[in-house]
């Protein structure tokens, strides 16, 4: 589904990714771990097409097509979803209106008919229940005044509504207490399917107790320095990143 070949990327003039090779197949869940500043979030952003993150070398293929030339919206319409590490507050735009605009943009691109207000409301209510989100958050402005946990729930709600082919979760566990983490992980697990792939980016092993990956990759200084099964995460928990990066990194 996704193939990264010798991917190099820069942001703000700094070289951050320095040759990433990665293959993700449908149905797989890949965890990407690494110390702060290793390039984990840049990897997420380069896949979603964030302006300012520039691919300098290498290729990214998504379902056989070049991904890099697509705009962020076209990537989303093609089935890529990035759950943001820091979901953005948008004052004055109702969350439900945002969700509906997003879903209908993606449905149009898939050649499906747009949902009307009634059908959308039924859908969003059902999905909100699944991430244990109070309906009042649908009427409020997007993420405005939401707590950290509410913002992350809102991300998972969007993912549940858009039903992407490839979901990238960028440090979805950051800032979550254990109850919120359980709810968010439950929402993610409910979306696991043989047709869908996921890349779970995290600093800590903790999240992987709830979202159990098929593969674990460790990034350090812009390269994948080790890949393995889920047991690699446990080993990291025990030994720290220094073991793989050769330094005293956290």
């Amino acid at each position, binding site marked *: 589904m996704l193939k990264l070949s010798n991917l190099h990327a820069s942001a703000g003039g700094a070289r951050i990714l320095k040759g990433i090779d990665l293959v993700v197949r449908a149905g797989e869940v890949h965890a990407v771990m690494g110390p702060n500043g290793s390039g984990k979030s840049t990897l997420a952003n380069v896949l979603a097409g*964030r302006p300012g993150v520039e691919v300098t070398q290498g290729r990214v293929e998504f379902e056989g097509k070049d991904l890099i030339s697509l705009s962020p919206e076209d990537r989303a319409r093609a089935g890529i979803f990035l759950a943001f590490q820091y979901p953005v507050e948008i004052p004055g735009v109702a969350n439900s209106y945002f969700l509906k*605009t997003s879903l209908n943009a993606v449905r149009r691109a898939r050649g499906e008919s747009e949902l009307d207000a009634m059908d959308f409301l039924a859908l969003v209510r059902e999905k909100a229940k699944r991430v244990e989100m109070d309906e009042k958050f649908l009427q409020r402005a997007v993420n405005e005044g939401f707590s950290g946990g509410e913002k992350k729930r809102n991300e998972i709600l969007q993912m549940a509504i858009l039903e992407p082919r490839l979901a990238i979760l960028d440090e979805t566990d950051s800032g979550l207490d254990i109850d919120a983490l359980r709810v968010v992980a439950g929402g993610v697990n409910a979306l696991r399917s043989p047709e869908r792939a996921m890349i779970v980016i995290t600093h800590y092993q903790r999240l992987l107790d709830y979202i159990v990956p098929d593969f674990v990759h460790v990034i350090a200084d812009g390269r994948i320095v080790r890949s393995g099964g889920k047991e690699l995460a446990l080993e990291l928990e025990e030994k720290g990143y220094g073991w793989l990066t050769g330094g005293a990194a956290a």
Partner: protein
Amino acid sequence: MSALDAARDHFLERTGAFAASAGRQDPEWLRSLRAQAVANFAENGLPSTRLEEWRYTNVTPLAQVLFELPDAAPAQVTREEVEALSFPVFACSVFVFVDGRFRPELSSPRALSGSLRVESIAELRATAPERLAGRLGRHADPKQHAFVALGSAFLDDGACLFVPRGTRVEQPVHVVQLASGVAPDRVCHPRLLVVAEPGSHVTLIQDFVSLSGARGFTNAVAEVTVEQDAAVELVLLQRENTASFHVSNLEVRVGRDARFAAHTLTFGGGFVRNDLNAVLEDEGASLRLAGLTVAGGEQRIDNHSVVDHALPRGESQQRYKCVLGGKSRGVFRGRVIVRPDAQKTRAEQSSANILLSEGAEIDAKPQLEIWADDVKCSHGATIGRLDENALFYLRARGIGEAKARELLVQGFASEVLASLPSPALSEGLAEMLREQMRGAGAEEAAP
């Protein structure tokens, strides 16, 4: 000779013909009001950028067009044309003026409350001028403002609403000022006169709109008096074509424990200058001003306000928002004056601005002048671009860039739109904003 002087001489020449034809039956006080205005205009002419109040507004482009008064024969306008321009909300009482003249056959003057209705100033001049005496021209001073002088020199018609003591008008009153564009380069000087007697309530929408793309000039002068315990809410909507010039002067006096609110919404007009001068002249007066400007292309939209707190316990709140794209230019200049007697005043003023393009420019200048010591006042101005993070967030959810920008602008404007006196009006204007943004979006795409 400068363009400003040439325009002054041109307009002065026309006042002679105007005085000879119009208003010969008018009472002495009204004829002298016009004569005084002509004298003031002859003395001061059009304002130059050397004047502090006009530093950011160069009227030379306006002076370069030698505008003529509309033809004597009324422009052919049909009811269908008027209705095509209306919002559903405006199905309330509609009073239509074309090129500054009242057109009863195009209006739907449903009774507001009892026998109360909007009246035409021209009609009142002819039938009951004593009702205008002491009210018309009471606050709009030709000595102070060049365009008030010009408008008063040509004072002819306009909308007039006297709300009697204790009367509560439930439905918004809708005044449409249509520029027919039948002939190009015509000027009209529409007046608005509102007196809300003690304890009365009224909401009035004044909608400036063009029927064609022809260039014109609207020089509007309005006077609003809100007497003790009364409440007046105004919506001023500017959607004339972008070839047109629009200058408006609104003078407001707010009495004891009275409330005034104005929403100035500017989407249209090529050259727009709005002046709002409000005096909170008695204790406990309150005032709320909200402004929203959305412009692109070569539009230039200036909003100036002066809020003068004269006596204690007054409250004023001003929130102006401005979104500029293309090569448009905007000005916000707001002055709040708190006089020595105006203790316990609370005044708040903010100007928030978004520039959508490299070529757009805004000058924001909030000012506080405080002469009393027991007051609570604040002001602030922000200028920024659309939030890049928010834009990426929306696009990462499949929303196209143009639509994403539109959503962010709508979010920015929502506070002003939500404050409008009716939900139908808010919705109608939100739709107008979306259309405006689509225009601006197309323009951004083609550099």
